[in-house]
């Protein structure tokens, strides 16, 4: 009986993986123009393996494509191992861009550094870290700047290029705090970028909150320039948009495609078959 169960399990697993693979036609992105800009969708707070994320940069790139993202930043806590794998990814002209980054993690603040080429150690204050990020050619984004992070005073908010205003946060209280921090930052710096991020670790979905960018060129440089200039719109998981009202209107008028899942039942069937197959083989 165990042998029969194991054989059936193996067959179920193979069938599940086969269906999932055949169903996984990675979508081609259609470039969207809005006046003089390209409109891209990005997620700049993504954790990867090795680190506290579950997917490798290679798998993340495909997942970003499924999620309808044009660019993601790999940002692990206080380390730079996973981003070093990015240059080793096989070339794929249709794939989303991966930008190296770090979530500089301190008890008083978390700060996303995007577009850097080495690890940045957490310093005592946000302005110090932001200055180091800028020195390395990157942009600094306040990560989930709520009341639990005492480091985000006015000096800190004036030093960053963007703040996470849109996140898939279950509690309304925290959503309000992120918005209030963004409003404070905007009073200090009218060009501060509105950022939407998923803070993806281990559970789907990547890009549930995202950032729309108005870039002059679809490249890492173009993306970083757009954040520096504040040409962004943050979008949360409910479709609420944040940022410069004129840009919000332009996104509404010309929204890039979101996650595609043309045959959800096939995907779900493949998951059930693969999971049941693995369980039968092991148990």
């Amino acid at each position, binding site marked *: *009986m*165990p042998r029969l*169960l*194991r054989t059936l399990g193996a067959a179920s*697993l193979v069938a*599940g*993986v*086969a269906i*999932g*693979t055949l169903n*996984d036609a990675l979508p081609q992105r259609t470039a969207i123009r809005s006046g003089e800009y390209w409109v891209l969708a990005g997620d700049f707070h993504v954790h990867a*393996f*090795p*680190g*506290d994320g*579950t*997917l*490798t940069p*290679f*798998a993340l790139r*495909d*997942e970003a494509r*499924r999620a309808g993202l044009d660019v993601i930043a790999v940002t*692990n*806590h*206080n*380390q730079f191992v996973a981003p070093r794998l990015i240059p080793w990814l096989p070339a794929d002209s249709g794939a989303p861009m991966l930008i190296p980054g770090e*979530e500089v*993690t*301190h*008890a*008083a603040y978390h700060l996303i550094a995007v577009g850097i080429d080495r690890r940045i150690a*957490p310093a005592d204050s946000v302005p110090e870290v932001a200055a180091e990020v800028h020195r390395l050619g990157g942009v600094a984004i306040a990560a989930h700047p709520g009341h*639990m992070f005492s480091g985000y005073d006015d000096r800190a908010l004036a030093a960053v290029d963007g703040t996470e205003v849109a996140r898939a946060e*279950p*509690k309304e209280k925290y959503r309000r705090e992120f918005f209030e921090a963004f409003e404070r930052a905007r009073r200090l710096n009218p060009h501060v970028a509105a950022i939407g991020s998923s803070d*993806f*670790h*281990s*559970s*789907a*979905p*990547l890009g549930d909150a995202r950032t729309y960018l108005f870039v002059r060129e679809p490249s890492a440089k173009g993306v970083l320039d757009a954040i520096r200039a504040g040409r962004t719109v943050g979008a949360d998981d409910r479709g609420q948009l944040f940022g410069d009202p004129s840009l919000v209107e332009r996104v509404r008028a010309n929204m890039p495609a979101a996650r595609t899942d043309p045959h959800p039942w096939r*995907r779900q069937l*493949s*998951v059930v078959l*693969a*999971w049941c197959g*693995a*369980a039968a*083989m*092991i*148990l």
Partner: protein
Amino acid sequence: MLSINARVALAPEDTYRQLVSEVTQPRWWQALARPALVLLALAVVVPIMAAGAVTASLVLTSAVAWSAVLLIQIAAALVTIGSAASRRVGLTRALDLWFAGHLPYTAWILLLPLITASHTIWPLDAIAVTFIVPTVWTTFIATAYCRTVLGTTAGGARSRVAAHQVVTLTVTAALTLWAAGGIDAVASYLLRTLERS
């Protein structure tokens, strides 16, 4: 009716005694069959959790990436097995039987997509809290293993299992600390978690 893994999980002492009495000496690749199933569980569950999908590419990359976890477990098992002078079976059989006791962890891995599906508990918190169940359960299985397969005394089994658990939990904690950004980051995360709850 039940598989060897399930019998070991439910009645470790009796099952191990019976398995030790069977004359068999698996080859290396046969001894790695059960560890391979643990890796299979990881390779299937990681894509389900992270992408809600299972494809050949996701399964393969997850298997390669997470094989490090399995290598650490095999190394810890070999140290435990190799240091027992009174072992009653060959090394490959001992390794095979060690991983026959892996069901609590493997079942926990398989259940992770459900454990992390809650919208009210952060996935990492749910993973950390539920990790206690297989850890405690495995302690009983490993103690029975040491007594019946490695031939140690009851006290020797307890100290050997304690040493094994301390080493593996220390390695797990060290990797977690590294991934989370260091002690300060973890401490502040715990404080924030308390406040959120």
